C-alpha cells in the first residue's frame, strides 16, 4: 500500500486505484474497452490512465464486445494479463460466445495447456434511470457457468483489492460492479492490503434472521438491518462477494443459528441466483429452518425508465424489512 492512499474514498476511485496498482506492478497488464482511453471510461473509472500509461496499455476498442472479449482472451492465452471492460453487462451478451465457449472452456479442453488469465469488468444493475437496455443484472446467469469465477464487490475495500486477486487467478474472472455504488464512499483499513476471492462475509452480525445479498443490494440490506433494530429484530447480513463458486459454508453457519433466511437479489426471481441459494438451503439445511425461505428480487419486468417505476421494480429497503420482519415476528 502506497502512502498517498487516502483512507476514505469512493468506490469508483477504489476501482481506479486497483487498476493503476495492477498496471504498475505487472508490465503484462493492460486495459481494453470502449471509451476507456480518451473518454476515461463511461463511469470515469479509467479517467487519467491513458495519460499515465499510454495507448499501448490503455487501449480504446471498437464498439464490438465480441472483439473486446475475443482479443482479450487471445492476449491472455498469449501471456498478457488483460483487464477487459464492458460498459454494462447488458452489452456483454454480445461477448457471451467468447466468454462461455472460449474463456470458460479452453483451459479444460486443452487439458490445462492453455490458461486464460483474463479479467473482465462489467457494470451491472439499475437505479440510475438508464432504462431497460443498460440496467439489468446478469451476474446470476454468469454464475451458472463452470470455468469462470464471478465476483461482486459490494464495498470499497472489495472494489480496491478484488482485482489483484482476480489477476492472480490463472482462470477467467468476471467482476460485476454495481452502477449505483460508484459514488458511494467508504473507508479503507490501512491494515488490509489484500482480500480473498473465495469467501462470503458477515457484514453485520445478528441472531434473528439472515439476510443474504451481494453487490448493489448490500447497502439496502444493511439499511434494512438498521430499521429492523427498531422492530426488535437483529438481522445478520451476509455479503456473498463471490457468486461463483458460492461460499455456502458461511451461509449455512449463519442460517443454522438464525433459522430464518431472506435472500436479496437484484436479478429477476425466476431462475435467479437467489433461487439457487434458496434451493441449497432447502437441500442441506432443511431441518434447521424454523420458517420458510423468503426472497426479495426485482419485479419480473424489463427495468423501467421512469424514476418512480424503476424504484418500485428494484428491491427496496422496505421490501427487505417486510420480508425479514414477517419471518422473525409473524402476525
Amino acid at each position, binding site marked *: 500500500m502506497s502512502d498517498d492512499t487516502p483512507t476514505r474514498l469512493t468506490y469508483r476511485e477504489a476501482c481506479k486505484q486497483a487498476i493503476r496498482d495492477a498496471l504498475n506492478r505487472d508490465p503484462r497488464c493492460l486495459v481494453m474497452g470502449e471509451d476507456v482511453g480518451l473518454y476515461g471510461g463511461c463511469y470515469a473509472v479509467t479517467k487519467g490512465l491513458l495519460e499515465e500509461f499510454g495507448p499501448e496499455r490503455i487501449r480504446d476498442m471498437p464498439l464490438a464486445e465480441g472483439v473486446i472479449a475475443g482479443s482479450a482472451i487471445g492476449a491472455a492465452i498469449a501471456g498478457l494479463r488483460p483487464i477487459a471492460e464492458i460498459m454494462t453487462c447488458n452489452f456483454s451478451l454480445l461477448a457471451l460466445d467468447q466468454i462461455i465457449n472460449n474463456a470458460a472452456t479452453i483451459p479444460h479442453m486443452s487439458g490445462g495447456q492453455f490458461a486464460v488469465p483474463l479479467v473482465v469488468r462489467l457494470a451491472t444493475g439499475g437505479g440510475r434511470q438508464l432504462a431497460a437496455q443498460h440496467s439489468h443484472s446478469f451476474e446470476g446467469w454468469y454464475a451458472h457457468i463452470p470455468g469462470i469465477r464471478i465476483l461482486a464487490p459490494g464495498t470499497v475495500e472489495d472494489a480496491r483489492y478484488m482485482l489483484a486477486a482476480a489477476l492472480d487467478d490463472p482462470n477467467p474472472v468476471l467482476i460485476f460492479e454495481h452502477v449505483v455504488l460508484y459514488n458511494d464512499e467508504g473507508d479503507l483499513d490501512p491494515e488490509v492490503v489484500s482480500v480473498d476471492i473465495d469467501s462470503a462475509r458477515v457484514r453485520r452480525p445478528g441472531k434473528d434472521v439472515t439476510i443474504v445479498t451481494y453487490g448493489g443490494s448490500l447497502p439496502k440490506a444493511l439499511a434494512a438491518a438498521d430499521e429492523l433494530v427498531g422492530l426488535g429484530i437483529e438481522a445478520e447480513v451476509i455479503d456473498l462477494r463471490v457468486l461463483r463458486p458460492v461460499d455456502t459454508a458461511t451461509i449455512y453457519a449463519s442460517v443454522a443459528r438464525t433459522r430464518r433466511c431472506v435472500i436479496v437479489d437484484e436479478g429477476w426471481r425466476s431462475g435467479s441466483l437467489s433461487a439457487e441459494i434458496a434451493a441449497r438451503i432447502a437441500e442441506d439445511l432443511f431441518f434447521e*429452518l*424454523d420458517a420458510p425461505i423468503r*426472497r426479495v428480487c426485482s419485479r419480473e419486468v424489463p427495468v423501467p425508465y421512469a424514476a418512480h417505476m424503476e424504484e418500485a421494480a428494484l428491491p427496496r429497503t422496505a421490501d427487505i424489512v417486510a420480508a425479514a420482519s414477517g*419471518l422473525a415476528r409473524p402476525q
Partner: protein
Amino acid sequence: MSDFTMPSLGADMESGKLVEWMVKPGDTVHQGDTVAVVETQKGAIEVEIFEDGTVSELVAKEGETVPVGGVLAHVRTAGDKTPAAAPATAAPAPVEASPAPASPAPPAPRPAPAAFARTGRVKVSPAARRLAAEIGIDPEGLIGTGVDGSVSLADVELARSRGTKAAPAPSARRTGFDPAEMRKAIAAAMARSKREIPHYYLASTIDMEPALAWLAAYNEGRPPTERMLAAVLTLKATALALREHGQFNGFWQDGQFQPGKGIHVGWAIALRGGGLVSPAIHDADGLSLPELMDVLRDLVARARSGRLRGSEIMDPTMTVTSLGEQGADSVMGVIYPPQVAILGFGRIVERPWVVDGQVVPRRLTQLSLAADHRASDGHAGGRLLSTIEQLLLEPEKL
C-alpha cells in the same frame, strides 16, 4: 365482485375454523358447489357457495379461525365488468406482470398458494418438528405463532419450559366429529331454547296400520336396495302438512315469525358414540317417496361419517325426530332455535284399538308437537297434527 363469507352453521356459532379450501383462485364456481370445509362443533362441514362466478382471491388461510360473516374469499360474479381470471401469462406483452406502483410499503412475499398446501395439516417448521421429537412433545398439539400460524421452535421451547407434555393432537376432523365439542353445541342450543322459547306440547295417537300395510305391499318383491322405511311416509306427510300450516315452518327472529323459504325438514340423526345432528332435507314436500328414501339414506350415511354440507346444517325450517323401534313411546321435543317447532314420532307399537266399534290389534304411534308459543297457538298445532294423521291414513296419496 362479491364476498364469500363464513356461514352461520348453528344458532350459537360465533366463528369457524377454515380447514380446507376445495377451490383455488381462478376456479369457476357454480351455485351449490362445495368450496371449503369448515370445522364446527358439529364436525367438519362442507360449505357451499350460492352464486356463480370465478374465485379471485382466497382471503382466509387454511387453519384460520374466521368469525361468522367474515370474508373467506372474493368471487368475481358474472355481472362484474372486469374480465374473469386474466392470468398474466396470457397477455401478449412480453412482461409477466404490470410495473408495480411506487407504494412505500409493499406486502411481504406471499406464501405458497393454498392449492399446494397439504389439506388440514398443522404446519410445523422443520426445526420445531425435530426439537419436538427430541424432547417427546407432539408439536401438532401446540398453538403456532410462527409464519402462517405454523408451530415454530419458540412454540416448542415454550411447551418445554412449561414442563407439560403437549395436549394430544386434535383428531382429524376432516372426517367424523368431536363428541365433546358436539356436546357443547347441543348444550348451548338446548339451553338457549329452554331459556328463550315458551314451548307448548300436543300429542295424538295415530293409527299407522294403513301406512304400514301400504309400505309392506310396496316393499314386497322389491330387493332391499329399493325398499323404503316408514320414516319416509311420516316425513312426507309432515312436509305436505307444513304446506298448509306455514306458521310452523320458519324461524322466530327479531321479535317476529319469519316464514321459511321452502320446506326443508330437519331430520334428527343420532350419531354413534353420542350426539345428534338434524340436517335439512331440502324441499321435502316436492320429493317422491323413493326420492325421499334415497336422500335419507345418503344423509344418514354422510351425517355419520361427518360429511354434511353447510346448507344442510343451515337450512332446516323445522325438525322431525323419530325414536324408531328401540325408542320410547313418545317424545316431547326441545325446539332447535330459531326454528319454531319440532315434531316427534314415537315407537310404533301394537295395541288394542277401536275400529268400527270393534277392539282390534293395531300398530300405533304417538305423534307429538313441541311448538313456540310466540309463533303459534295450540289450536293451530292441533290442526297440524290432525292433517298429518289424515295424510298417513291415505298413504297411497303421499
